[in-house]
């Protein structure tokens, strides 16, 4: 009996150690999971404590900074196109005038941003640069450093005009969007005027790209009404050097300015006979230049 009792006693001590070890582990786990917020999940390692993102304030200054960033993007793109796209003659003169207009617009927006209590933003829009503008420029001018390398367009001057048309159309839709969002009527009028200037630049680009009278009115607009349906002007001549046709551009495309995306087709045709296509969406929250975003111009 005593032997059996000793055995039970040793087992009890072993069992005690086992239970004690388990308890220590549980205590450590509970301590790690503990905190002020009992519902929060446990943390492993030494990662810093996560904090919620601040709720961004969206006000007139943010809208104006966003428009400024688009103007800066367009200015940088036009500088590249002026130097590298092979434009000459009236189209090159027009692009230089366009750049002057955007310089003026950027200055106006900087002033309006200050008046709205914000800090002027003088850098390109990072969201558009990363997703749209960089890749479009590559398709027009080529990029040997890309993987795989991107060949230049078969007609960079033609595609520079198409890019300008899409950028000016994006400007138009952006100004229209923010006219409704900003508060002071005087600021709305200034944005509407900047949009009107962009609208004329887009129309001018269409005339250079498609020629006249072919580039005056889009077939879709003519077809909207029986009075104009039969007045289709012959489609612009296709001047492409390969098999892939180019979509014509028109000065008058809609009855009312639109908030929709500005589509674009540029670049050399691939093996399937297709060119690079994209569409520049009107700025939304993910493209806004919030007050917390800073840059060094």
């Amino acid at each position: 009996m005593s032997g059996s009792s000793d055995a039970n006693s040793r087992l009890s001590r072993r069992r005690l150690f086992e239970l004690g070890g388990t308890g220590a582990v549980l205590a450590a786990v509970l301590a790690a999971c503990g905190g002020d917020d009992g519902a929060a999940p446990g943390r492993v390692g030494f990662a810093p404590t996560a904090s919620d993102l601040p709720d961004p304030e969206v006000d007139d200054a943010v809208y104006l900074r966003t428009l400024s960033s688009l103007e800066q993007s367009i200015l940088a793109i036009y500088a590249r196109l002026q130097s590298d796209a092979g434009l000459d003659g009236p189209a090159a003169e027009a692009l230089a005038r366009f750049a002057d207009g955007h310089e003026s617009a950027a200055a106006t927006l900087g002033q309006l941003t200050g008046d709205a209590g914000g800090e002027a933003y003088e850098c390109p829009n990072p969201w558009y640069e990363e997703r749209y503008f960089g890749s479009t420029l590559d398709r027009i001018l080529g990029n040997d450093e890309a993987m795989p390398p991107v060949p230049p367009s078969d007609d960079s001057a033609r595609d520079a005009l198409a890019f300008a048309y899409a950028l000016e159309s994006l400007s138009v839709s952006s100004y229209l969007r923010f006219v409704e969002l900003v508060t002071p009527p005087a600021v709305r009028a200034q944005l509407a005027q900047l949009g009107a200037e962009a609208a004329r630049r887009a129309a001018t680009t269409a005339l250079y790209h498609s020629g006249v009278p072919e580039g005056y009115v889009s077939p879709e607009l003519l077809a909207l009404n029986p009075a104009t349906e039969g007045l289709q002007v012959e489609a612009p001549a296709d001047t492409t050097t390969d098999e892939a046709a180019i979509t014509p551009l028109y000065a008058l495309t809609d009855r009312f300015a639109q908030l929709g995306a500005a589509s674009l087709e540029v670049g050399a045709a691939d093996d399937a006979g297709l060119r690079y296509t994209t569409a520049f969406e009107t700025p939304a929250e993910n493209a806004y230049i919030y007050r917390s975003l800073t840059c060094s111009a």
Partner: protein
Amino acid sequence: MSSTPPGETSSSPRRPTAGDVELLALAQQFELAARELYDLALAAGDAQGDAGGALAVFTTIRENHDEYASALSASLGVAAPHVRDDATFEAMAADFDSADAASVAAAAYELESAAVANHLDFVGRIESAEAARVLTSLLLVESQHCTVLADLAGNGSDLAALLDNPAVGAS
């Protein structure tokens, strides 16, 4: 300065105020005068072909002004005047009543430039965000009318004529 959630419009009134209605009514009268001026031009030039695209342009712009008047009716409701601005019509009728497409385009360029300038002035005085958007959406296209008409009038090589609004000031 207002603060609004993303995607929301500003704190301005959505519906036109009494002052807005007065301005929108003037805008509609201008649009109806423009429509009737293009009617004159189309009637005078109806026998011509459309080799230069004038008929397509004038007809399209005429239809646009008709739609603008309708859009303004939607904003104005029962306050819509539905009558043209006689002063504008009478001042320009002789210039539009012509079979010379280039001279009509030159007159139309002046008309569209004035339309854009007037509407910009109204946008700067209207309180309703919705009414400001409607007026802006049409003046942006009227700006493009100007560019096409400048070319049609024979000024396609003049960048200032294509790009600048003489009634507003150079860009």
